[in-house]
């Protein structure tokens, strides 16, 4: 019985991934839009969580998103680069930015690193405003008509990208990479004495994280068809990426994905349910988030693990939960 249950559990992520991609072919615009939002949020929160798991707290995911958006949009308007080329270019430019950020921040940790990422995002936003000839400045850029693709193709691209990012994080969690991340988060200086080269891992982590988000930014740009500095470097991206990870369960593989789904569900539910009353939907959204984070310190995934463990072990689990809490 147990064996069957656990192999079933293992198949769930793959089935969900397939379902997400399949949903793009369903002809229901509202559902498609939700799934696209979920796909994008899965990518940014998986990326945010990957960095956080190595102790690199990002307040600048908007920088990666914006750089990817602009790279693909500028290449599209100037060179006529289509969607797939734009996404590849965005991932490459994003990864490069990640490497540069890793080199520039050196050994900075915690809040000091976080502030650098925040400055990067804000600096890039201001730069795009200041360079109207290259970036279209505050008036923005429009995607050329000829390059637009059917919406279904975009939904598929978003879903596939999300599945790739989620799969990458699952794979990384099984390799020595995850040990490097955890060791660096706990004590980077001690990890060095065990032969770990922190700069190499920082560059790898930032390149992967930034590349993911930049790719998502490019796909999202094609979806919107328009780009200006405030859209590209929106603080919203940064905030949602961390809220999804924290609500879902930080430092876990499933957490950011669960969190992304929960955030989109919550924001849409409050918008649809309470949208008629001015501000009520945002208030409800905020209250639920605060309560969620207050009462589920290990996130939705942590809660689910506790409940599942409780179901299997029955009453005997109470002690374990207590020790778990003591940690």
């Amino acid at each position: 019985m147990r064996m069957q249950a656990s192999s079933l559990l293992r198949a769930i992520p793959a089935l969900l991934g397939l379902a997400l991609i399949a949903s793009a072919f369903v002809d229901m615009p509202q559902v498609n839009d939700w799934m696209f939002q979920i796909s994008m949020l899965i990518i940014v929160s998986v990326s945010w969580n990957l960095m956080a798991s190595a102790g690199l707290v990002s307040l600048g995911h908007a920088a990666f998103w914006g750089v990817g958006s602009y790279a693909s949009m500028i290449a599209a308007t100037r060179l006529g680069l289509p969607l797939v080329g734009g996404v590849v270019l965005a991932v490459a430019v994003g990864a490069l930015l990640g490497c540069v950020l890793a080199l520039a921040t050196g050994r900075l940790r915690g809040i000091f690193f976080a502030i650098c990422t925040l400055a990067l995002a804000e600096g890039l936003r201001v730069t795009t405003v200041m360079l109207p000839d290259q970036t279209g400045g505050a008036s923005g850029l429009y995607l050329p008509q000829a390059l637009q693709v059917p919406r279904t193709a975009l939904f598929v691209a978003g879903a596939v990208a999300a599945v790739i990012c989620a799969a990458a994080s699952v794979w990384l969690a099984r390799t020595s990479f995850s040990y490097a991340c955890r060791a660096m988060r706990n004590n980077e200086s001690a990890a060095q004495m065990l032969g770990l080269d922190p700069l190499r891992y920082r560059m790898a982590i930032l390149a992967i994280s930034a590349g993911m988000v930049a790719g998502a930014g490019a796909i999202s740009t094609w979806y919107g068809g328009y780009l200006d500095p405030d859209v590209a470097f929106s603080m919203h991206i940064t905030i949602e990426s961390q809220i999804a990870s924290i609500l879902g369960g930080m430092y876990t593989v499933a957490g950011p994905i669960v969190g992304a789904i929960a955030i989109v569900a919550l924001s849409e539910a409050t918008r649809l349910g309470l949208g008629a009353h001015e501000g009520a939907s945002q208030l409800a959204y905020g209250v639920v988030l605060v309560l969620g984070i207050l009462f589920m310190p290990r996130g939705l995934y942590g809660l689910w693990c506790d409940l599942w463990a409780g179901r299997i072990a029955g009453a005997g689990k109470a002690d374990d939960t207590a020790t778990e809490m003591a940690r």
Partner: protein
Amino acid sequence: MLELRNLSKQFGGLRAIWDLSFTVRKGDFLGVIGPNGAGKTTLLNLITGYLKPSSGSILFEGNPVQSLPPFRICRLGIARTFQVVRPFGEMSVEDNVLAAALFSASERIGVAEGRARARSPLELTGLWPIRDQLAGTLTIAGKKKLELARALAVRPRLLLLDEVMGGLSGPEVTEIVEVLERIHATGTTILMIEHLVEIILKLTSRVVVLNFGEKLFEGTPQEVVEHPAVIESYLGRPLEAAQAS
């Protein structure tokens, strides 16, 4: 194996290490003692690349290593423990040691191979039964043992120990002494900083005494404990002698 030549480290006007030279030969079990603030931990930080010397050089197996970062030092075959323990608190005891085995390996090894290599250090240090416990929840003695287990997982040729016995109870000290004897017998060279004089007497073949960053004396453990200058550096001069001078 390890040679220090005229090594100095200044922090502003403070001479933490001053013109220090000594050699650790292959197979040595060298003790480094000295009163608090003598520069013992600074010495280890210099050897392992956490600090850059102000002048002088450090040679490991004939090659200068004083400008290398810690992770390169580790890959040359030098491991250390930290006096102020630095466990990966959110990882299990086993994963701590496993991480050490993974990153110090000269070739790329997988997690399964790392886990296999972590077993013997865990068993040697007596941590095997509690390998699933989170490292952050260990007692100070447990964390000291974990420091040693992690250093052993590096499979070093030169092992630097910074007060690895501190905080351990009597029986635990005996246990670790046996472990160190066994490790030394397998051909690992050990440099040990230790305050417990009976441990130094029991384990080491040679002792370097530091005082105010300088080498005060070097000799066999027996010579060291009988040397007047060493006694003076620890206990001060006898009152009558101080008055007479």
